[in-house]
Every structure is written in structure tokens, then in C-alpha cells.
């Protein structure tokens, strides 16, 4: 339903989105998870044809966002982070205007407006000026606007931002109910939100996709330590790789020879911190341990920037201090 290929957006020298690719199947709810400023909004704006990409391609419902923007726009419902509303209009006339510009035929307009007001439970404020509505109601009017034309695809940028806990739960339930009949991309920086609503998660940070998985698998991966980089001297790379593989708790090892020493990238099994075992192993073999540290931008580091404060999650443990041993 949605296909993104190597999408890049640069603003002058700054890179907001850096070659990201992903796919969304029909009826799927995809969570777009990342810290603020990761490039979520920019990606969504490209998918809704609001911004042209610098490089790369994207298709929504089979249409190229750059070549056929009108066809894409007909099939996409979108709420930006702050729902775009006219404060001087009442809810009913606002939705009527939206129905007109979305090209709904006059005969269906009334029924579609009533249906989306019912789904988002805003029927009781239909005659009120939008400017006088509470934040929660405004968000829901935005959502009603997005689902008005019964689009194939819904793109929701932080749909629960600024809502109170009860409204958040209601909104998530609504989104879940919309999945199946709609393909949904939902962005958030709240980890538990994707666990509750999404079938799959794409995590982006600094404009790149850093992980893509089901929420369950991600949570498992998160609880384990990140990849460790171990640098040692004294043995053949293959020999060292085999020895490290035998350390209990090691899931995978990849060796790289570099001027005289060997760098090993060690993936630990979930929930294990293997630094002590790895160091012991190297020393027992009589090799020189040059360095032992977690690798670059680990998932954990990304998650430190995410909001994980909701109850029943303790996914983000502080990143382990890097241990460096010099022989």
C-alpha cells in the first residue's frame, strides 16, 4: 500500500531524512517511532505530497507521490501534529468544507460527515466554534477530517500529543478500530503507544531507519545489551571468532581484521551483559584486549530519547558505560 525507497530530504546542508526505505501492507498499522527531530514529520509530509523529496521515491496506493500527487491526495487522510483547523468555523461547516475539497459528491457528504463525527464522538459539539473547543475535541475534529473521505491510507502525526490520559486511550482504541479497513502510519515518540496500537514498528533516528520489527521483538531486543565491539591482538581472526562464539550468551559474531589487530562485533542474547565474560575469554587465550565497548547508536541510546514513562514499561535501561582495557 505504501512503499518508500531511499527517501532523502535535505534543507540546505541539513539532512532531515537520510535515505530511508520501508513498506506498509494493506490494512497494517505501522508505528513510526523516533525521538523528536528524527525526521518523522518530514517523511509524513513527503508521503502526503506536502513536501517534495530531495531524492528517492515513494508510492502510496500505487501512485507516485511526486508524479501523481492528486491521485495520492485523494486516497490519503492526514493529520499534522497540530490539527489544521479554522477557529472561526463551527465543526459542522468545517467538515462540510473538508468534504467539498476532498471531492465528496453532494449526496454522500451529509452521511459521511455524520459517520465520521460519530466515529470520533464529536456529534455533541457539531454546532460549536472550533476556536472554543478543548484540545481533545480539536484533535478529534482533526481525526474526523482525516477519515472523512474514507481514505485507503491514514497518516497520523503524533495523534495523541497533548491529550489527557483518558483521551489518549480513546484515541488509540479508535485508531486500532480503523486499522484493517485502513492502512495507517502513526508517528509517536512514546514507546508504549506503538506496543498498544501497531502491528509493526519502524524506528528512525537522525533521519535513518535504525530498526524495523514487531513491537514484541523490539522490546526483547531492547532489554538485551547492544552490540559490543571487541578489539584484540594475538590470534587469527577466524580463531578469535570461533573462541568468542563459544562464550555462553553470545548470539552472533562478525570479525574484521585491521592492521595487526582484530575487531569483533558481538551480538549478545537478550538481557545479557557479556563484557566480563568476553574480557575473561580473551585474556585466558593469551591475547591482548585492546578495546571493549558498546557500538555507536544503539537502540538503547535512541530509546533514551523516547518517552517511556508510561506504566508497565521499563524498556530503557541506562546505556552501559563503555569499558576500555588497554594491554
Amino acid at each position, binding site marked *: 500500500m505504501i512503499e518508500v525507497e531511499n527517501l532523502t530530504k535535505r*534543507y540546505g546542508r541539513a539532512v532531515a531524512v537520510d535515505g530511508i526505505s520501508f513498506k506498509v501492507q494493506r490494512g497494517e498499522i505501522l508505528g513510526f517511532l523516533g525521538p523528536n527531530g528524527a525526521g518523522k514529520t518530514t517523511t509524513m*509530509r513527503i508521503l*502526503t*505530497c*506536502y*513536501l*517534495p523529496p530531495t531524492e528517492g521515491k515513494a508510492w502510496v496506493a500505487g501512485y507516485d507521490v511526486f508524479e501523481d500527487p*492528486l491521485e495520492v*491526495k*485523494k486516497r*490519503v487522510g*492526514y493529520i*499534522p501534529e*497540530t490539527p*489544521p*483547523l*479554522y*477557529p*472561526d*468555523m463551527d465543526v459542522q*461547516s468545517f467538515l462540510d*468544507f*473538508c468534504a*467539498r*475539497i*476532498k*471531492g465528496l459528491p453532494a449526496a454522500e457528504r451529509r452521511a459521511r460527515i455524520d459517520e465520521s463525527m460519530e466515529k470520533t464522538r464529536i456529534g455533541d459539539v457539531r454546532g460549536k466554534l472550533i476556536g472554543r473547543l478543548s484540545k481533545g475535541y480539536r484533535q478529534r475534529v482533526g481525526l474526523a*477530517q482525516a477519515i472523512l473521505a474514507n481514505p485507503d491510507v491514514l497518516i497520523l502525526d503524533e495523534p495523541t500529543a497533548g491529550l489527557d490520559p483518558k483521551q489518549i486511550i480513546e484515541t488509540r482504541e479508535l485508531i486500532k478500530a480503523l486499522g484493517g479497513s485502513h492502512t495507517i502510519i502513526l508517528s509517536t515518540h512514546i514507546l508504549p503507544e506503538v506496543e498498544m496500537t501497531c502491528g509493526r514498528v519502524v524506528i528512525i533516528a537522525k533521519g535513518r531507519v535504525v530498526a524495523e520489527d514487531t513491537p514484541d521483538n523490539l522490546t526483547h531486543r531492547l532489554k538485551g545489551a547492544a552490540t559490543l565491539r571487541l578489539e584484540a591482538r594475538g590470534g587469527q581472526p577466524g580463531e578469535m571468532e570461533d573462541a568468542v562464539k563459544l562464550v555462553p550468551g553470545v548470539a552472533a559474531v562478525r570479525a574484521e581484521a585491521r592492521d595487526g589487530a582484530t575487531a569483533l562485533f558481538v551480538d549478545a542474547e537478550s538481557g545479557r551483559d557479556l563484557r566480563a565474560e568476553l574480557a575473561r575469554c580473551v585474556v585466558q587465550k593469551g591475547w591482548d584486549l585492546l578495546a571493549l565497548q558498546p557500538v555507536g547508536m544503539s537502540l538503547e541510546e535512541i530509546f533514551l530519547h523516547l518517552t517511556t514513562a508510561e506504566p508497565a514499561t521499563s524498556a530503557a535501561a541506562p546505556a552501559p558505560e563503555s569499558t576500555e582495557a588497554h594491554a
Partner: protein
Amino acid sequence: MTALRNVAAIVNKEWRHYFGSPIAYITLFVWLALFGLFYTIALQVFVAASANPMGGGRLSLNDWVVGATLQSMAVVTLFVVPLLTMRLFAEEKRQGTIELLATAPLTSLQIILGKFFGALGLYALMLLLGLVNVLPLWFVASSPPEWRPIATSLLALLLLGGTLIAVGGFLSSLTRNQIVAGALTFGVALAFWILSWLDDPTAGTATKVLAYLGLLGHTEDLMKGVIDLKHLVYYLTFTVFGLFLTHQSLEAQRWRA
């Protein structure tokens, strides 16, 4: 068809904004008050001149009353149009609703035309309501005014208004601040008004070119009832250029934003 429906939807929305806020009422009030004032003054001058035994023959109601009033209203237009255009795009940008329009299945051109005709429609309404002042002349005057110069004067005002709306819309698309947009539009209108003052048969070519660009000079023939193609071309070119600039400005902002 779809294109027309889309433009109509925007026109409809613009009218909701105008009449959902004090803007329409304030502009209508100011316009009609000034229309009435200039009309009354012109009528008094006319009555005084007619009563003068040395005045020499019958004076024309067209020139002395209707023409004089509409000429004053051409100047008032320069002041009033910025009030109608300042929010056109600036407000959408500030509220973020430009994103709603830009992600709806509309083209930029449809949005621009919808806003243009929305504002022009309100301006046309102002013209028509102002004319109500003039209607009694047909019932009380011994020789009623001719309709033709009045019709061409209205055309002149409509063309002038359209030009200013196109320019004001463009300036409004440059900023998120309505006041800035309004002030810029007023400044540009004033500058192009002043250019018309340069018109002088003895002037050199450069001055003549500048004077030709003046906004009000081109209303004169039309106000006399003469339809000359060059004036229509002037206003329509100016209008299309303004709409074109608006289009370029909106597209450029998408690329940069």
C-alpha cells in the same frame, strides 16, 4: 467540473471567514460610509452648480455626481482592498491550515483562484451596495443619468479591485503576519497610485512609461464610458501576473519548507 467545484468550495470558505469575522462588516461599513459621504458631497456641488444662473446649460448627472463619486471610490479601493487580502494566505500559514489545503486533492491554482474570486466577490458586493445610493436619481432627476458610463465605471473599479486583490494575495503569501501583508499591499497600492500622477503630455519617454504603469490612470477612459482594449489589457495582465507570482511563491515555499 471538479476544478470548478474546488474553486467554488474555496470561495465559499473565504466568505465564511469574511462574514464569520468582523472584517467583512468593517470594510462594508467603511466603504458604504465613504460612498455615502462622497455621493452627498458630489450631489451638493451639483445642486449648487445647477442653481447658478451663470452655470451655463444643463449639467450632466453622470459626470458631476456618479462619475465624481466613483472616482473617489477608486481611491478608496486602494485603501480597502488590503483589508480584504491581508489574511488570504498569511492566516493559513500562521494557523497551519495551508497544510490542510495543500494535502487535499486541490491544485495550487484552484486554491489561488478560489481566494481571488472570494475576495473579488466581496468587493463586487461592496460596489453593488454602494450603487443603491445612486438608484433614486432615476426617480427624481428630470434627466436621469445614462447607464452606460456607470456600467463601464463599475467595470473599471472591478478591474482595479481585481488587480489589487491579485497583488495583495501575492504579498500575503510571502508572510505569516497579516499586518505585514496588509501594510505591504497598501504601500504597493500607494506607489502605483502615485505613478499615475506622473502622467503629463510634455513628459519624456521614461516618465511616460512609469505613468503608464500607474494604477488609476487607466480607469479614466472607462469612467467616461469608453472601453479601450489597452486598459483592459493593462489590468488583466497585472492581475494574471499577480496570480502567477502567488503560484510561484507557494510552490517555492513547498520546495524550501
